């Protein structure tokens, strides 16, 4: 029997070449916006309207203006871009939320997955039901609650409502259910109480789930837009997204400055991506219910 044409070596290597070619071109197209951004960031203000990518002379002036090393040549004042402060705020809020949320979620997940008690499933169902509700439904009364607690325009106002999460509890509960029951039974026979079982048996085994939750929570809060937008009024409390949005409002007409600012604000995110990518990919597969 002759081999079908789709399995001949020549055909196969042609397909491999085509794959490489197609995917490489696609990657190039996907990166075009970033290339355009970088090129525009190095153009002079007279040059941005030209149809070409490549700047005539790579001038670092825009970057220096955005980094507040030199003033804006038109207005003779330093621009309102306090990147260090914004990143500090973003990381502060995201780190606090992540720590608190993982802490509260894994304790609750333990109660929902490893302890038998009356009413457990009913309360858990309540948690599940609220996950279906759009965030917008919650945002309005949450804001009202923050107003009455006097937490509007504070760090706590950004951190506290996000420290408790039905999703986090749900995710870690699912993860803990996958740990064999015999482990804690063995520990119980050895005379361990719930605290000991939680700390010594379940927590170490639930670590991958906790790391996944931590990464999702951190990134989600680092780039959160709507809640800080509603809560923050003062310039010194701005997070990166809010700060950049305010910069856009002020300097939206100066494209070269805007692109320099977005370029600079993307750099920390790209660094985070390089650090977290392996865990992130594993976490995404975990949360989608397929083994990676």
């Amino acid at each position, binding site marked *: 029997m002759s081999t*079908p044409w*789709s*399995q001949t070596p020549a055909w196969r290597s042609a397909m*491999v070449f085509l*794959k*490489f*070619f197609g*995917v*490489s*071109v696609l*990657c190039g197209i*996907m*990166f*075009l*916006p*970033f*290339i*355009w951004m970088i090129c525009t960031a190095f153009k002079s203000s007279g040059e941005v*309207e*030209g*149809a*070409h*990518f*490549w700047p005539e002379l790579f001038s670092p002036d825009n970057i220096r203006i955005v980094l507040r090393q030199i003033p804006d040549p038109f207005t003779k004042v330093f621009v309102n871009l306090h990147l260090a402060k914004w990143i500090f705020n973003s990381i502060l809020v995201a780190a606090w939320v992540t720590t608190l949320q993982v802490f509260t*979620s894994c*304790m609750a997940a333990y*109660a*929902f997955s490893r*302890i038998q*008690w*009356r009413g457990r499933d009913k*309360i858990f169902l309540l948690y599940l039901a*609220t996950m279906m*509700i*759009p965030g917008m*439904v*919650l945002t*309005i*009364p*949450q804001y*009202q*609650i923050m107003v009455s607690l006097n937490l509007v325009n504070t760090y706590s106002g950004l951190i*506290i409502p996000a420290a*408790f999460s039905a999703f986090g509890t749900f995710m870690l509960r699912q993860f803990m259910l996958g740990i064999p029951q015999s482990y804690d039974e063995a520990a119980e026979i050895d005379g361990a109480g*719930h605290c000991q079982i939680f700390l010594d048996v379940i927590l170490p085994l639930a670590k991958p789930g906790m790391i996944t939750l931590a990464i999702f929570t951190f990134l989600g809060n680092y*780039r959160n*837009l*709507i809640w800080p937008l509603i809560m923050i009024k003062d310039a010194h409390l701005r997070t990166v997204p809010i700060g*950049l949005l305010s910069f856009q409002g002020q300097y939206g007409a100066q494209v070269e400055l805007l*692109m320099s600012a977005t370029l600079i*604000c*993307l750099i920390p*995110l790209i660094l985070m*991506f390089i650090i977290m990518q392996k865990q992130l990919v594993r976490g*995404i*597969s975990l949360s*989608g*219910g*397929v083994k*990676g």
Partner: protein
Amino acid sequence: MPRLYSGVRERKHFWAAMGFLALNLTGFLIFTFGPVLLSLYMSFTNWTLRRSVDLQWVGLRNYQELLSDSNFWFYLYNTLYFMLGIPFAVVGSLVLANLLVDNMLLKRKKLRLRIANVLIIVGLLTCGFLLVGGQKDLALILGVIYIGAAAGIIWGSVSYRTMLYVPSFASGVATIILWQQIFNPYYGMANNILGELLAWVNLDVDLPTWLNSTKSLLGFLPLPATFSNGGVGLGAREAIMIMGFWMGIGGNNMILYIASIASIPEDLYEAADIDGAGSVGKFWHITVPSVAPTTFFIAIMATIGGLQGGFQFAKIMTEGGPAGTTTTLAYYIYTKGFVEQELGYAAAISWILFIIVFALTLVNWKYGNRKMEAAS
């Protein structure tokens, strides 16, 4: 005695559970469950942020007003229109995942390095010549493609996956501002490239004005006058959908699909090889049915996300315009609640949104489960 024992034991367990749960449950009641009830209550009142107005129970008035609010129907239409892009993005993710699931396309390391060397030398030469010849933009773009190809050959599909994931990871205020500038009709990248392409094929048509345009691909539909229909063409909504495609195609969905395809048993493909199936046949008859559970998960998440989405794009790029064509329900809730300060009315919209999300998820669930049973 066993019953008494179990009673004591259970009570002990209950208090232990409460100890673990107390913190989370308190937060949950104050910041999630409480707000749910409060929001439901608000939707039946004239609750505003202005202190001068007395709080009044208005019954179903907000909901009645909403159903006769032509803006509400317009913005619902916009939301659903944006969601039409989701299937295309999901199919794109699946195709990409299928291309990138093998770690190494070339198994022999020596061959890989040799090809990569050739690519780098050819790349340097072409780009150098183009640069000297004044074709700097072409050199730049080709250079990026060459780098991508060389990385893909040396490190395998992982480098492609990483590169394709970057747009989705970086998505946020910065990239949305970037796309807003890309779609600028005068100096933006979209019209620069489109203009060059059209000049190249000698076609003389007006370039789209993207974010300033009320046109849409469904502009031929007999829509009500309040829907600001600008005719057939590429408008603000298409611009946002293109950006969404860019952000979504290489993102989490692709990674989910890669994990899912990787777990398909190899012998299914081997059996198909023996039957002489081509790669398209294998994709259609083995891969697609095998990843049905993942598709189902993605469909549910995308529906829920899509119905609540569009806030960021509207807030950053268009402020809902032009003429309301990019306002989604989420952005409508934001403007009603926090700009016009009518929290009661905004709460009513958000509850209607919840009902739509819930109904569609239910349909998805029923229909999707049946489809999956049929497939397996």
